[in-house]
Every structure is written in C-alpha cells, then in structure tokens.
C-alpha cells in the first residue's frame, strides 16, 4: 500500500480515528499514512489538537474509535521516539537522562550509546552536568538525544522550533532533518514555513479535525 504521497510503503497507518475527552473535546482523523523515511508535517492553529494527535500516534491515549497501526501491528511505544514541546527532566546528569530509554529496556550499553548521541548532537561536554543547569536549547538537544538513543522507527516531534529564532532555528531544522533521515517522522508546528524544509508533505488540523488534502482551508494553511 502506498502512502498519500504515493511513493513509500506506510509504516504508520491511521484509520477512522475518533477521540474525545470526558470534557467533550473531540479529535477526528479519518486517514493518514506515513512511510519509512518519510517526514510528514502537521500544521494548524494553537489548540487544534495537534499534540493530542501525536499522543494518539504514540499510544499514550486510547481512541474511542479507529486505530493507529505501526508496520501493520498495534502501537508499540518501544518503537517510537517522542520529543515533547516541554520535555520533563529527570533528576541526574545529562547522560543519565539521555540513557533512560535504553535503561528501561535493560540495555547494558545504555551509557555508551547515550554518549554517542550526545556527541552527535554536540552536547557531550555537558554529559556529567546536572541536566537542570542546561539552557533551553541544550535541553532540547538532550531531549532529542533521549528520544533517538533507542533508535526509534517512528519519530514524533512536537513544536520542535518553539523558542528558537534566526540562525539557531535554521541550524536546528537541519539537525532535525539529519536525525529524522531513514525514520518515519511526524512533526507538529503551528508554522507551515518551518515544516516546508523538513517535511515532504504537510497535513492540516483545525478544530480537532485532520482536514482532507483537497480541503480549501488546508490549502490556505499550506500556503
């Protein structure tokens, strides 16, 4: 089966997804497919439900209807790397934080692998520092390292460009593109411009609904 871009075998498939909180707020996504090595952007206004949609993709919320499938199987969180807009920091060093995902999997090489990713993301010199002493940008890199150290097949990025501007924003965009290479990636932003260089296509979510690609409003958001 081809993705909506028509070129790749889908790794992520969303079908007939319906989700509602007890408060009544609802999310609806009829179809989405993301192939291995494909980066899909998700854009929409603040409060449109983009972050909730990512949580559904990650298996952190259970839909009332429909399903998300990874490689044809139910969602397995261990195949996913999720970089949150506001990553939580655990007590301990940058290295300990980066290694958590592998430690949870019982990997003995957790520290070595985490250090490799810290080096790739140019924050290895802070490895032994307490993570809460890092700047916002450094924390973002540490959070990316923490998500990537498990070598996830699906990478979810929630507003990765928040709090960055100018050259730093451009550098970070290039960095993310390198890290996303070879993985299925879904990137959420409220700025379509940021997604243009990172994602091969951009989907639009408004008022909790993933809009069809030919929807007039979706075309306006992409523009």
């Amino acid at each position, binding site marked *: 089966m081809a993705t909506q871009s028509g070129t790749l075998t889908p790794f992520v498939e969303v079908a007939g997804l319906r989700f509602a909180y007890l408060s009544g707020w609802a999310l609806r996504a009829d179809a989405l497919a993301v192939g291995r090595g494909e980066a899909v952007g998700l854009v929409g206004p603040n409060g449109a439900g983009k972050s909730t949609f990512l*949580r559904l993709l*990650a298996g*952190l919320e259970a839909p009332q209807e429909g399903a998300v499938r990874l490689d044809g199987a139910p969602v397995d*969180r*261990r195949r*996913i790397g*999720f970089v*949150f807009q*506001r*990553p*939580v*920091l*655990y*007590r*301990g060093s940058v290295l300990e934080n980066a290694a*958590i*995902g592998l430690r*949870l*999997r019982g990997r003995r090489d957790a520290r070595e692998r985490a250090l490799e990713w810290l080096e790739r993301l140019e924050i290895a010199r802070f490895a032994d520092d*307490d993570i*809460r*002493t890092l700047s916002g940008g450094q924390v973002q890199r540490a959070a990316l390292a*923490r998500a990537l150290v*498990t070598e996830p097949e699906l990478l979810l990025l929630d507003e990765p460009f928040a709090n960055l501007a100018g050259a730093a924003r451009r550098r970070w965009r290039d960095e993310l593109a390198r890290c996303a290479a070879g993985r299925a990636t879904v990137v959420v932003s409220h700025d379509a411009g940021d997604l243009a260089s990172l994602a091969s296509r951009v989907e639009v979510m408004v008022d909790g609904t993933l809009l069809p690609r030919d929807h007039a409003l979706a075309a306006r958001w992409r523009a």
Partner: protein
Amino acid sequence: MIEITIRSIGVSGVATLIAAALGVPLGLKLALSNGRAARAGLVLANAGMALPPVLVGLIVALALWRGGPFGGLDLIYTPTAMVIAQTIIALPLVVALTAAAVRALEPDLWTQTMALGATRAQAARMLLREARPGLLAAVLAAFGAALSEVGAVMMVGGNIAGQTRVLTTSVLQATRMGEFERAVGLGAALLGLSIAVSACVTAAQGAAWRRSPAR
C-alpha cells in the same frame, strides 16, 4: 534503658516499614488517579493524619481483647499489638505525604516516561525516584509519629517490663512514680533518637536534592 530503647526502635521501625510498604504504593495510586474514589481516599488519608492515637489504641484493644473479633490470636499486650496500633497511626501520614510529593512533580512526567517505552511498573518506579525527597519526609514523619506515640501503645501493649515497655511508656511511668531524674534520662534518650533519625533522613534528603538544582 538500652533494652527499652532497642525495643522502641524495633517496634516503631517495623510499624514504619509496614506503613511505608502499604502507604507508598497507595499514595502513588491516589496521586495518579482523578476519580471520585481517589479523591475520597485522599480526604480520608488527610483526615487520618489527625487521627487521635488514643482512639486507635481503643479500637485495636477492642479488636484484640479476648472477647474481641481477633481475641483468639492472643496478641493483646504484645509488641505485635503495638506494631499494629503504630502502623494504623503512621499509615495515613505515609499515604497523604506520598500523594502530595507525587502531585508536586511535573504533571506530564508519567506520560513522558511512558513515551520512553516504560511499563506502568517502571513508570511508577521513576515517579517515586523523582519524588524521593518527599518520600523520605513521609517516612520520617511516620517514624516520628510511631516513636513518640504513648497512648495507643500503653493501651494495647500494657507497658509490661521486659516485654512491651518502650521509651514513651517508661517516661510516663517514671513521671507517675515521681522518678523525675529517670524520666528526664529516658526523655533525653527519646529526643536523641528522634534527632539521630531526623539527621539521617535530612542527610539522605540533602543528597537527593543536591541532584536537583531546581530546588
């Protein structure tokens, strides 16, 4: 006095361990739930912190008395009865303070830990690890409440020399008998014990906090 001090530490220590073993998971569960039952549980735990120890003593004594529902176990006036009473007194403290410590953590911590691939049990352990300073405070408060308890242990233990006499009941008895010098000595031992335990826990808390510049 050494024998009485060791018994005090033993009885209160066992009661604190049992209260911690039951109360920490329960406090965590209540902190992570938003349902009515959880809210009711928290209200009960908070109310339980002000539970009159003498009432606990009365209830445990009635339960363990020969004619009571558990009279056949022959536990009244034994250290086990004292442990039961002290556990009931310490448990609400552990539950309520654990729940407060977990609720003070980052609200998204559970979700983001699950997103790292943790099982529910692993995520629970991670949360407790993050709440370590608060948990230590909960256990210290529980031990302090158990160690300083006098009314309940007097009722269910009977202050029997060589069997159920502990520091607090000894102080009470010495005072009643006008042996003020002995009472002051026992009181000093009790105070020293409290300070020693507090110092140990404070040091442990300090080590936990030193790993967290967000203090």
